[in-house]
């Protein structure tokens, strides 16, 4: 066996020194980059991704920050994040309150993407899920004050599917209706036209990332009426019709006429007319 010469010992030592320096340096850089990336990849809730982004982390690993989607966006909706913006550097996003997505039928942004970060499998723009509109402030939405507005409903590209109008009672006046927008998450694409069009100083309807906008029911929950529908019948002893404790022959119609006296029996304590009853005095 050859004994190593001074020279080979020296070069071996230098080699080991260099390797350990590079490894040490790499560790330091790695720690720095790792920590920084934790913060830098969090997406502000008002910043929405283009159509075709299914999940943020998959998107971030596929997007090469080329801006081709931004270039092909005919409405200048999409922006590329610049240094100083809160969105991951160089990635496309839009702010619905400024310029919403116009939901082009040919989806040019998705077609322009060279990496598939915007999923080319998405053929129909109605399948996009950029976020979910939420009527976030009922206290300022004028529809909830009893005023007619319905602007968000009218601009919605999927009106009656993504936003519908619901009539309820106006408890303040006691005699008017409230006509309020209701959003349906199964159809809303998150295009943001509602948020953009909201007539308030600060929109009462906002598009949020689905992760913020949606709740999730505990998976152990079983909703009786759904289970009943699935099974086609009640899973427990069926409900008996409610039995009212009423005078012979009388009936009660819930959500209808109310008390129905037995036919031919007119000895109700109440007269037909409330005014007549008052006028009778305390006889």
């Amino acid at each position: 066996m050859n004994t190593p010469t001074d020279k080979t010992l020296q070069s071996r030592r230098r080699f080991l020194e260099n390797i350990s320096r590079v490894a040490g340096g790499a560790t330091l850089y790695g720690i720095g980059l790792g920590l920084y990336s934790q913060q830098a990849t969090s997406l502000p809730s008002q910043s929405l991704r283009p159509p075709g982004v299914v999940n943020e982390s998959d998107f971030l690993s596929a997007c090469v920050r080329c801006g081709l989607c931004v270039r092909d966006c005919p409405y200048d909706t999409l922006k590329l994040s610049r240094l100083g913006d809160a969105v991951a550097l160089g990635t496309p996003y839009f702010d619905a309150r400024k310029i919403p997505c116009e939901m082009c039928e040919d989806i040019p942004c998705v077609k322009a993407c060279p990496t598939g970060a915007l999923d080319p499998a998405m053929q129909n723009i109605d399948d996009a899920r950029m976020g979910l509109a939420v009527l976030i402030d009922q206290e300022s939405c004028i529809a909830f004050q009893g005023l007619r507005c319905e602007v968000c409903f009218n601009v919605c590209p999927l009106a009656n599917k993504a936003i519908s109008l619901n009539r309820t009672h106006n408890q303040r006046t006691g005699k008017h209706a409230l006509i309020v927008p209701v959003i349906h998450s199964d159809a809303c694409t998150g295009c943001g036209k509602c948020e953009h069009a909201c007539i308030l100083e600060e929109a009462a309807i906002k598009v949020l990332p689905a992760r913020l906008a949606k709740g999730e029911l505990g998976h152990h929950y079983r909703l009786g009426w759904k289970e009943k529908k699935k099974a086609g019948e009640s899973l427990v002893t069926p409900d008996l019709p409610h039995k009212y404790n009423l005078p012979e022959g009388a009936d009660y119609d819930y959500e209808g006429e109310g008390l129905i006296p037995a036919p031919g029996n007119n000895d109700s304590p109440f007269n037909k007319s409330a005014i007549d009853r008052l006028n009778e005095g305390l006889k």
Partner: protein
Amino acid sequence: MASSVTSSKKAGLMAVKNKGWIKAHKWLLLRRLNQIFILSLFLMGPVFGIWLVKGNMSSSLILDTLSLTDPFVFIQSLLTGNVAEATALVGALIVFGFYALVGGRVYCSWVCPINIITDIADWFYRKLNSKSPVSLSKNNRYALLLAIFVVTVVSGSMVWELVNPVTMLQRELVFTMGFSWLVILAIFIVDAFISRRAWCGRFCPMGAFYGLLGRVSLIRVNALNKSACNDCMDCYVVCPEPQVIKPVLKKGDDLNPVILAGNCTNCGRCIDICSEDVFSLGMRSAKFIDVKNNND
């Protein structure tokens, strides 16, 4: 020999005297023109509405047909575990093949806009006759490159593209300018006053990546005419990676006269600055003996 060595301030005077200013700056001028030409191709669209090239240097679409992707950015994307579309893969392979042909770090010296900044910083450095207070190892860039690859795999996210000044600057030049100019200013200050050639030669992992490609690339600078060398050392002053010149200027006909070191950027400044025309561009297989035969 010491008497023939010019001070770094005066490097190039002999070349200008012997060859004229234009010839002594030929490759430099061509590089600057090329860098500006490429940027203006990208800017023609947004400024004049002439869309010859769309996107940016990370990925672009040329004449609505040819799609190119930067292989360094592409590899980061692959390392996150993402399987990209064929468009990006083909685009990255084309660019990879191109630089394998013309020299890996040709990207650095002929394309990258930061090179303009760091070259100016180095010009300041030389004119001020500065001494760097901080000197960093040239291997630092490999440490950073390694860290980037590891963290990209572990985190599943393209971490370097969150800070990469190279892609950041040219993206913001072509799209809208954010605060990337502050990063560029920082790079300039470090290069000019704190640590010479720190960015391109010590930090930039993109340069390190293309340097690795340069180790096998076809077109290389050679010193076939090294017998004419008068040891003026001007090439060492202007070369952004002076360590690559040393092996080819060693005396001896049996030594390979081609710069094989991957970190040679094929910038051609040594060709410009040499008053005796020692250097030229050629194939990596260029043989010393050929020139001798030609000269004879």
